[in-house]
């Protein structure tokens, strides 16, 4: 930023008309420049303060360390089949138009192959599809699952209970800045939420290129943990490219979000989990297993 237009007016920019130096000119320039710089620096410090945030600084207060550890372990354990609780789901039903007319697709009859049938075998009676056991959505089948649910219940009780500092807690050796919203703590919330979503997530892992399956959503939640809205982020992977694998991946992620709702999160911290953005789905690790 040039400080004084009079210095550069005639020489450096000859085609620019020289402005006369007024009595207010220099004073205004210096003061204005100083004020403006100070404001810009202040604004930058204020806005980009997270630039100084060390990478490893997930804020994990002492009384929440156990929670983060537990949820991390659960996330890496072999996942148990999810048991949705559909009766609790309260998804705003969109207004539906009458279904569009089906597309027409005339199918040519199969080639009527004339084959020398020396010994035509009788078609074996196909086994009828085995009747699936009647779904019992609320009844967990696996002991492991029960255990996980109990773990979760315990965790959530802990979360929703009034935060209370354990007797043996002590201050950490250094100050760790929070990430996410302002001064609030969100690392544990991200853990809790992802560990509830991943159980319902079954991405189309047969795709040849795993990068096609990475999608991002903006998820808005209601205070009761149900889904208020779910929107695919436009910059998400190749979502805009019309890639059929990406579309399948986006739909699989969407199904997971709805299926595992409502989410059990601490009500007193609703302001921190009301908006989840980005909700990032990346199955590359899963496909390498």
């Amino acid at each position, binding site marked *: 930023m040039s400080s004084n237009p009079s210095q550069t007016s005639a020489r450096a920019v000859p085609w620019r008309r020289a402005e006369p130096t007024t009595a207010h000119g220099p004073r205004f320039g210096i003061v204005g420049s100083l004020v403006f710089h100070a404001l810009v620096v202040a604004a930058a410090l204020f806005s980009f303060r997270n630039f100084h945030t060390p990478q490893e600084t997930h804020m994990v207060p002492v009384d929440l360390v156990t929670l983060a550890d537990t949820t991390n372990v659960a996330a890496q354990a072999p996942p148990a089949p999810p048991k949705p609780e559909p009766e609790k789901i309260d998804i705003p039903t969109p207004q539906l138009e009458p279904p569009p007319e089906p597309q027409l697709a005339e199918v040519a009859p199969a080639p009527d192959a004339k084959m020398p049938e*020396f010994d035509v075998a009788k078609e074996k009676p196909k086994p009828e599809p085995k009747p699936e056991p009647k779904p019992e959505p609320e009844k967990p089948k696996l002991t492991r699952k029960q255990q996980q649910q109990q773990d979760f219940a315990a965790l959530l009780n802990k979360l929703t209970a009034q935060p209370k500092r354990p007797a043996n807690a002590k201050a950490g050796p250094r100050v760790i800045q929070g990430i996410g919203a302002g001064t609030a703590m969100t690392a544990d919330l991200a853990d809790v939420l992802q560990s509830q979503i991943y159980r319902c997530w079954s991405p189309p892992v047969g795709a040849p290129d795993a990068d096609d399956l990475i999608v991002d959503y903006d998820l808005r939640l209601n205070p009761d943990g149900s889904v208020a809205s779910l929107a695919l982020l436009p910059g998400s992977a190749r979502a805009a490219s019309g890639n059929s694998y990406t579309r399948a991946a986006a739909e699989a992620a969407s199904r997971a979000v709805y299926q595992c709702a409502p989410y059990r999160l601490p009500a007193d911290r609703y302001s921190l989990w009301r908006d989840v953005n980005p909700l990032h789905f990346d199955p590359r690790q899963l496909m390498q297993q």
Partner: protein
Amino acid sequence: MKKFLVLCAILLLGFSAAGPARAALSVDVTQGNPQPLPIAIPDFLPGTPADAQVGTNIASVVRADLERSGLFKPLDPRGFVEHITNINTVPNFQSWRTITAQGLVTGQVTMQPDGRLRVDFRLWDVYGASQMLGLQYFTQAENWRRVAHMVSDAIYERITGEKGYFDTRIVFVAESGPALKRVKRLAIMDEDGANPIFLTNGSYMVLTPRFNPTAQMIAYMSYIGGKPRVYLFDIETGRQERLGDFPNMTFSPRFSPDGNRVALSLETNGNSDVYIMDLRNRAMQRLTTDPGIDTAPSFSPDGRQIAFESDRGGSQQIYVMNVDGSNQHRISFGGGNNGTPVWSPRGDLLAFTKQHGNNFDIGVMRPDGSGERMITSGYHDEGPTWAPNGRVLMFTREMPGQRGSQIWSVDVTGRNERRVLTPGNASDPAWSPLIQ
């Protein structure tokens, strides 16, 4: 001056306001729980009372197709809460959510006055409460099974993002009789095992049948007259012809992706090499010349390269060369003997048979030999063939203590291994492209 300060203040306010706006919770989901998709497929509604049976049959075939893929879990119709009475109205999604369905297929079949069968169906996203697909087919009444497979393919493609493979056929060698006097006949059936038909009468042995790209022609090796030669079999006419007139054995044929050429092995004085025959002028071009046994050629889907097996280096290994025979190089270095390479229709992988000790297993690797992994672990699994979508494989399996061989299928991930029903024992399956 005042204006300038005001401007600065506005700027500062703007910056500070941007802070709280970014305060959304960021969540990464990198672990998943691959599970078959629960899908509800009620019997297709009859357009007239006389259509009830075919409506039931079509839904039953669609359920069986999707279940067999391992990617879907068709739910038991007895548990359905809503009774679909009209496929042109929006279903009550909540009632399908309560039975854990994530997909719903509603359909209707109606016999037309001209004798054709009209099949309409819709695929619904239960959680998204929207229609994902709506299609209508007309066909001859006796083709209801094919239409059912087409419905399955459309659902599979819409949900997974990749083409289906249910409207396909399998050609294979049907085996019967005692081990020392085994009768081997060429046979063909639908992908689900329905409509099996023998194409040859068993008076001569047949081996290694392979489809051409239109699934109308089969190349195979036969011992007609006691001489092992490669033959072509026209499925439509039943006509067969010997491919070329050579004094010595020809074997291991496979069509090029455009169907105009056949790669095969020709044996001369105990040495076999890979050749390409142009079917339009029957000209033969020799691709390998070394004194080892070169055989089992398989084209890449772009037709530019050929994978084959050779023992030129002292053990049976997989090699890749350009289609003109140049740049022959070994790609299998994962231990054991490796053979019968088959290029995936998707081009990303080669399936092969690995022999280690007394075991034979099916594996896949990239065309440059990297990323080798075994996807079956049986006693004797060999001869893989790809589904046209490059996602599923079939192969021949023999098990200890069991007489005769069977055909099995497995997902390329190694999951969902299951037996393919054949009339009697069977071997050497070859998967057709999607029927045109």
